C-alpha cells in the first residue's frame, strides 16, 4: 500500500474527527494528569502527561480536607433533588389539567407558560433576592431552590407528552371510579416515565452546574453547591496549587460525567431539551 492511497477522503475525515476529538478531550486528559502530579512536577514539566511521582491521593486528600467536599456534594444532590421533586409535583397536575380536562383557562395558561419561557432566572433574580433578604432567608436550602420550584418549561414538556396520550386510558380509569388526582398519580405518571426521566436529566444538569444563583444567595461553605464550593476552594488556596485544584475539579465533575457515560442516549435527549426552551 502506497502512502498516497492512505489519503482517501474517508481517512481524511477520520483524521479530522480524531484530531478534533483530541482537542475536545484535552482538558480532561490534563485534568486527570495534573490531579495526579505533585506540585514540583506541575511547575517543572507541564507536557509530560504521565506523572513520575504519583500524588493523586495526596491531592485528593487536600481537596477533601481543605473544603468540606462531602458537604458540597451533599448540598448539590439535595438541592437538585428538592428542585426536581417540587417541579414535577407542581407541573404534572397542571399539564394534565391543560391537556386532558375541559378547562376554559387552558388558553390563558398557555400564554402564561409561553411568557414564562422567555424569562430566565437572571431577569427575576433581583426582586427574588430582595424578598429573600427582607425575610432573612438567604443562605438556606430554601433560598437555593425556591426560585426554581416552578418550571414553565416542565409544564410545556409534559403538556406535549400528555396530548399524545390516548384518551381511552383516562376514560377507562374514570369508569373504574378513580378520582382525577388518582388518575394523575396512578395512570398518568407511570405512563409519562420517558418524559419524566428526560426532564429529570434536563433539570439536574441545569441546577448542578448553575453558578449564578448560588453565588447570589449563599455566602457560607455550609450551604454551597459544588460550583460555588470550587470557587471558595480556589480562593482559599490562592489558586496556584493546581494539583489539589484539579483533584477537586475531578471530584465535582465526576458524578455527572459518570452518569452521562452510563446513560448517554437519555442524557443527550434530556439536555437537548433545553433547545426547545430557546
Amino acid at each position: 500500500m502506497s502512502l498516497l492511497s492512505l489519503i482517501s477522503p474517508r481517512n481524511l475525515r477520520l483524521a479530522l474527527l480524531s484530531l478534533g476529538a483530541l482537542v475536545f478531550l484535552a482538558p480532561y486528559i490534563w485534568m486527570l494528569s495534573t490531579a495526579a502530579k505533585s506540585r514540583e512536577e506541575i511547575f517543572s514539566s507541564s507536557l509530560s502527561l504521565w506523572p513520575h511521582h504519583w500524588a493523586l491521593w495526596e491531592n485528593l486528600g487536600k481537596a477533601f480536607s481543605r473544603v468540606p467536599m462531602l458537604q458540597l456534594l451533599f448540598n448539590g444532590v439535595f438541592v437538585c433533588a428538592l428542585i426536581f421533586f417540587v417541579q414535577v409535583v407542581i407541573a404534572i397536575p397542571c399539564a394534565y389539567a391543560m391537556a386532558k380536562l375541559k378547562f376554559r383557562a387552558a388558553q390563558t395558561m398557555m400564554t402564561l407558560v409561553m411568557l414564562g419561557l422567555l424569562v430566565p432566572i437572571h431577569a427575576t433574580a433581583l426582586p427574588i433576592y430582595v424578598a429573600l433578604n427582607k425575610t432573612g432567608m438567604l443562605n438556606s436550602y430554601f433560598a437555593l431552590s425556591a426560585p426554581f420550584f416552578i418550571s414553565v418549561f416542565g409544564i410545556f414538556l409534559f403538556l406535549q407528552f400528555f396530548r399524545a396520550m390516548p384518551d381511552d386510558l383516562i376514560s377507562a380509569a374514570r369508569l373504574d371510579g378513580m378520582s382525577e388526582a388518582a388518575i394523575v398519580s396512578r395512570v398518568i405518571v407511570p405512563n409519562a416515565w420517558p418524559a419524566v426521566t428526560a426532564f429529570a436529566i434536563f433539570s439536574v444538569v441545569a441546577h448542578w452546574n448553575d453558578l449564578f444563583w448560588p453565588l447570589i444567595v449563599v455566602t457560607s461553605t455550609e450551604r454551597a453547591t459544588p460550583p460555588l464550593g470550587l470557587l471558595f476552594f480556589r480562593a482559599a488556596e490562592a489558586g496556584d496549587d493546581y494539583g489539589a485544584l484539579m483533584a477537586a475539579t475531578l471530584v465535582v465533575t465526576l458524578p455527572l460525567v459518570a452518569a452521562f457515560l452510563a446513560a448517554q442516549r437519555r442524557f443527550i435527549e434530556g439536555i437537548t431539551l433545553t433547545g426547545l426552551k430557546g
Partner: protein
Amino acid sequence: MSEIAAVITGPSGQSPARQAAARAAKREERVAWQLAAPAIMLILLLVLLPTLAVFVFSLTNYELGYDDFQFIGFENYAELFGDRTFLISLKNTTLYTAIVAPLSVLIGLGVALLIESETRGRAFFRTAYFLPVASLLVAMATVFQYLLHPTIGPVNAILSMLGIAGPNWLGSSSTVLISLAIIGVWQSVGFNMVLFLAGLTAIPRELYAAAQVDGAKSSWERFRLVTWPMLGPTTLFVTTISIINAVKVFETVKTLTEGGPNKSSEVLLWTIYQEGFVYLRVGYASAMTVIFLAVLIVLMILQYRVVDRKVHYA
C-alpha cells in the same frame, strides 16, 4: 360524556341527562382549577411578579439597605447610556457573541456532517464532542485556567516548542475575550452537533438520490442543493440558541477574570451581578436587567419572524 348526552336527548332539550352532563362539566372545570392552582400561583409569584418588580425597580433609586426610595422616572436609563462600564459591557458581550455563536454553529455543523458520513467510531466521537456539555462549566473553566497559564500552562509550552511566544491568554486585555470565546465554543459545539445530527437524520435519503440523477455529482453540490436547505429550520434554531446562550455568558467570566483585566472581559450579566448583588444598587441594576431582557425578547421575535417567512417547506 356530553356527546353521549346530546345523542340521547337531542340538541335543545333540558333533560335530566343533559343537566347531569352540565354538572359533570362544571365538576371537571373545578378539578382542573384545583390541579392547576399551585402552578398558577407559583408562576405569578416567581415569574410574573418579579418581572414586573424589575420594571418598577428600574424607575426608582432603590438601594438595598436604605429603606426609602423615590421614583426617578427614566433617570437610570439615561445614566446607563453615559455609563462607561455599561457601554464597555455591551460592546464586549456583542463581540463575544459575534465570535462564539457563528463558530459554535459552524463547527457543530461540520462535526455533525463528518460523524454522519463516517461509519467508524460514531458513538465514540459523539460522546467525545458532547462531553463538555455534560461537564461542570466552573470546574472545566479552572482546568482551562491551568491550560492557558502563561508560564506553566501546556498550551504555551506547546507553542514555545514551535518557537512561538504564547500570550498571557486570560491575563492580557487583548486576548482575554478570545480566550473566553475559545472556552465558550468548546463548551457549546457538542450541543449544536447533537441538534444538527437530529436534523440530518430527518432528511429523506431519496432526495440525495434525486439530486444525483439531476447531475449533482460532487458531495459539495449535494450539500448545497439538499442538505443545507433541508437543514434550514435546524440551523435557524441552533443559531438563535447559540446567540442567546452567548449573551448569557457569566460562569467563565466569574471563575476566570471577574471582568478584568481593565474591564476588557466585562460582560452584561457580570455587570448586572456587580451592580445589583455586590454594590446593591437595585434600581440601577434593574434598568440593566430590563435592557438584557429586551435583548433576549428581540432575539426571540426575530427568530419567530424568520421562521414564519423563510424556512417553511410544507
